[in-house]
């Protein structure tokens, strides 16, 4: 039985940021595995999302673009990666639980919680998309019938990723001389 929540709207004139609220609700709920896929992400959003992943057994898979981001976005993401590395010094399981892939051809935007719920639509995970743009998305619960296809899709995305920003990352932390 699928439960649908629709429409999930971001509209500045109507002062609606439903997607952000839904995402926050998901981040605060109980789960084992969260998958967040979007071409563009806000470094601060990922930093805040990671607050719930230290010293527990939760897993997080992130897939984003990296090469064609704006410099300020790239900077925020690099800062997030540095924070993750610091956290990995304290909690050694983090590098096994959190994986951040880079796929330059990614265009889909979705969040999957425990392969049970999916939040997807036109929203990127950026400040603009979550607050300033006009965007539309949908939230579905009870997606077990579609899990097989979704898993194949995610495997394709991950399988064709060009690198991982975390844990195995060489480009970000190397200091330029």
């Amino acid at each position, binding site marked *: 039985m699928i439960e649908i929540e629709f429409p999930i709207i971001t509209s500045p004139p109507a002062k609606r940021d439903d997607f952000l609220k839904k995402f926050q609700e998901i981040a605060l709920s109980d789960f084992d595995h969260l998958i967040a896929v979007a071409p563009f992400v806000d470094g601060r959003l990922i930093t805040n*999302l990671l607050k719930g992943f230290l010293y527990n057994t939760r897993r997080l898979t992130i897939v984003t673009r990296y090469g064609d981001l704006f410099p300020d976005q790239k900077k925020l993401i690099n800062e997030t990666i540095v924070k993750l590395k610091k956290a990995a010094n304290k909690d050694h399981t983090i590098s096994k639980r959190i994986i951040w892939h880079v796929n330059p051809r990614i265009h889909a935007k979705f969040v999957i919680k425990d392969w049970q719920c999916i939040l997807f639509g036109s929203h990127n995970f950026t400040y603009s998309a979550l607050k300033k743009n006009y965007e539309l998305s949908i939230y579905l619960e009870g997606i077990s019938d579609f899990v097989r296809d979704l898993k194949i899709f995610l495997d394709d995305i991950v399988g064709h990723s060009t690198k991982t920003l975390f844990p195995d990352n060489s480009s970000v932390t190397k200091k330029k001389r």
Partner: protein
Amino acid sequence: MAKRTERHKARIGTSSGFAIHLRGAGVDQQKMDEIILDYLRMESDLLGQETRPTEFNARMSIDAIARGDYQPDRTCSLEGPSANVREKLRYMKYLGFIRRDGFRTQVLTDYVRALNANNSVARLNLLQHRIASWKLRCPQGAGRRWTPKQNGYRHYRVRPGIMFLYALKSAEDHGVEIDTDDLTLTALRFFTPAQRGRVDEEFLRNHIDQYFASKAERLPDYRAEFESQMDRVERDLGENLRANDPCAFARKCRNAANDTFCLIILMRKVSLVEAPNCNTAIEHWSATQESYDHTGKVPEFNIVTLTDAGRQLLAESIELFPIWYEDICTLIPSQEHEDRAEMVFYVNKLCLDNNIPQDMISDDQLEYLANLGLSGRCETGVFIPDRRPVFELQYDMP
């Protein structure tokens, strides 16, 4: 070095000097719950800026001023309006709701869930178990920063909540009544590192038993006991800077009594103790009756007793063996961080499961565990410790 001195000077007057600093325990629970909810709301904002402690302080101060709660001259009552931001933060930190690095703890999530569901039983249970696993860490730097030895609590290895309950039980066993002064001089007493390399639970339990055994024979000379605690200030830089202060003794007595008073309030709120009488007409000399300048006297709970819940919690927790992350750090150098991580994993596993399959653990690691104090026996391929440890990854690791 100059920087350290400045930091040291800045702390003058913030420590009670006598006993363990637990004033945060006295804050109003209902307001605290609102603050905890606010805090989670603030922290769960995915686009929110990183909240530094100073920002959090500032935001809470603005709230307090807006509500009209802020009182520059605090009254003797620490409940309600006069509880300030620092105490609330410390309360949240002690109970494991928040961490310095801002990561969200499971305790906070569980507590807020119980609050939102209006489940008072779950909420109370959680608070009680937090108090049972509450371990004393240096309040001035969370165990990591430099802290002057004379003024810090690094040498303490006790669970103050459990020691508090033990003092009540010990007094009961010796057939004596226990009041705020007794608690200040037993479970919450200050020991210098010189008195013992490490003040652990066994040491404190012996002290508590001896104290009540002697109280059963005759009433202690409270003033002399409190004065003897003042000896330690000779080597205390912060105190020496204040050497000309004529109110030093009164202030220290009052602060120590205040800390104990606040802990009694917290314990009473979570139904671990009963303290029905708040007495201001005290027969013997009492630290609660010392006052200075414009500060009032601290009300004294003159008879504190254990409830059934408190008795049960004490029985469950007293035999557990508390281990600090710092103990593991002392044992294993930082270069061998993988060994450290493994040891943390094993201690945590012992804490949750009470045993480790023998094929999972090497003899060297068993030796490490024994050095930590976790000796045990191997039965049918499983290592079982003599005493189960108290260790929580989220709370213990700084």
